[in-house]
């Protein structure tokens, strides 16, 4: 019995000693801050910062080649934590979420054909421009939902919808959309124009029942041009997110019904 204990203990000691020596003399130096920063990041590996995963961003942060605050998922808290580790000032970031700027559901937007192919917006868009009459509108084949690392986008009634609570603002959907109709907007903004068609009113009406006609009523109702809540591109109203409107009345007064108050969709996760 005693021999057994002695031998096991001896083997253990020798092993421990060897490992300790190895750690002391053979170890390879690595900046300890990399591990600390990685721990401070959310660990979603969404790639929204442009680096391969959180570890990659952490290495770049420590190396000083990346700006702090690029992590939309972690938000302010994360940026502050990272700044504390790195000893630099944090730049404030407002949480941003994706917004699909189209409200042409199956019952409102005109379909010009029967699409028969793979469920992917990019391919559908390359097939005669897609089956939607409006060439600017959401095709509803979920290219954005496919790339969303958080599963925050789902397609309902032929339209992609974003779950605001799940969205981390990584912006992958923005580049995935062949129609470029997804925009990152401040999470605090509540009033949005859900149309992306800059054509003249009659042309928009031809293809969609809820398209923006550029009537400027929203601008008038929100205090006129001076108030600066809206900008216009062609015949399309755009919310100025630097100075977003907050009067819900203008949504109700929109004759085209292309505006909405907080259209973000909640999947009930």
């Amino acid at each position, binding site marked *: 019995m005693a021999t057994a204990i002695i031998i096991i203990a001896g083997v253990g000691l020798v092993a421990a000693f060897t490992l300790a020596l190895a750690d002391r003399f053979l*170890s390879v130096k690595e900046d300890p801050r990399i591990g600390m920063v990685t721990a401070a990041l959310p660990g979603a590996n969404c790639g929204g910062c442009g680096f391969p995963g959180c570890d990659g961003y952490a290495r770049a942060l420590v190396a000083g080649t990346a700006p702090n605050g690029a992590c939309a998922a972690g938000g302010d808290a994360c940026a502050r934590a990272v700044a504390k580790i790195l000893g630099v000032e944090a730049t404030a970031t407002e949480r941003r979420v994706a917004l699909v700027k189209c409200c042409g559901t199956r019952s409102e937007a005109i379909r010009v054909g029967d699409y028969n192919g793979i469920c992917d917006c990019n391919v559908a868009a390359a097939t005669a421009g897609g089956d939607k009459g409006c060439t600017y509108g959401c095709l509803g084949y979920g290219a954005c939902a496919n790339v969303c690392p958080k599963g925050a986008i789902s397609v309902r009634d032929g339209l992609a919808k974003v779950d605001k609570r799940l969205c981390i603002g990584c912006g992958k959907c923005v580049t995935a959309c062949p129609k470029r109709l997804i925009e990152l907007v401040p999470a605090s903004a509540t009033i949005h124009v859900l149309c992306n068609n800059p054509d003249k009113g009659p042309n928009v009406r031809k293809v969609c029942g809820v398209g923006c006609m550029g009537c400027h009523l929203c601008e008038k109702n929100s205090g006129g041009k001076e108030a600066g809540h809206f900008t216009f591109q062609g015949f399309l109203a755009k919310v100025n997110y630097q100075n977003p409107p907050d009067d819900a009345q203008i949504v109700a007064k929109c004759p085209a019904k292309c505006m909405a108050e907080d259209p973000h969709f909640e999947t009930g996760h």
Partner: protein
Amino acid sequence: MSYYLMIFVGAVLVNNFVLSRFLGCCPFLGVSKKLDTALGMSGAVVFVMTVAAAVTWCIDRWLLAPHGLGYIHTLAFILVIASLVQFIDIAMKKFLPPLHAALGIFLPLITTNCAVLGAAEINCKQGSGFFESVFFSFSAAVGFGFALVIFSGIREKLAHADPPRCFRGIAIALVTGGLLSLAFMGFSGLVKLPY
């Protein structure tokens, strides 16, 4: 020569460590998603198992057996293998950085690979000689790698499959592993050896 060939065939095909002895299932399921990682893991296992067999043989023969302590060899082997893997990890990082980059992430996983311990145990039980032990462990590791590589090929294919929701992931991998084991039963009796 033919004796060693028999050991090899026995350990790789007939009594495959994973598919027949069901040892080392954790890395078998864990590191088989991609062929590249499976190859890396196989390389690491072959390396560690061969070295571990040599070390444990020495411990058993010269430290435990003389004192009649055969009954604690499991305890001793776990200790030795765990430290050995750690040591190899550190040493490899220092002296062979490219090899460490390729195998490094798998080394900590091997610490708890029961296949390493299993090989040592079997050697111990068989009371085989040094070279025999080392060669058997090497063969067993090759068998482990063989199964792992085959399995990773199938799993790469399964990654594009569309099983029912409840079978996704590990569940379908286990079913596949079971079927693979079923297929390997065809080799039974191919070599008539205790191994």
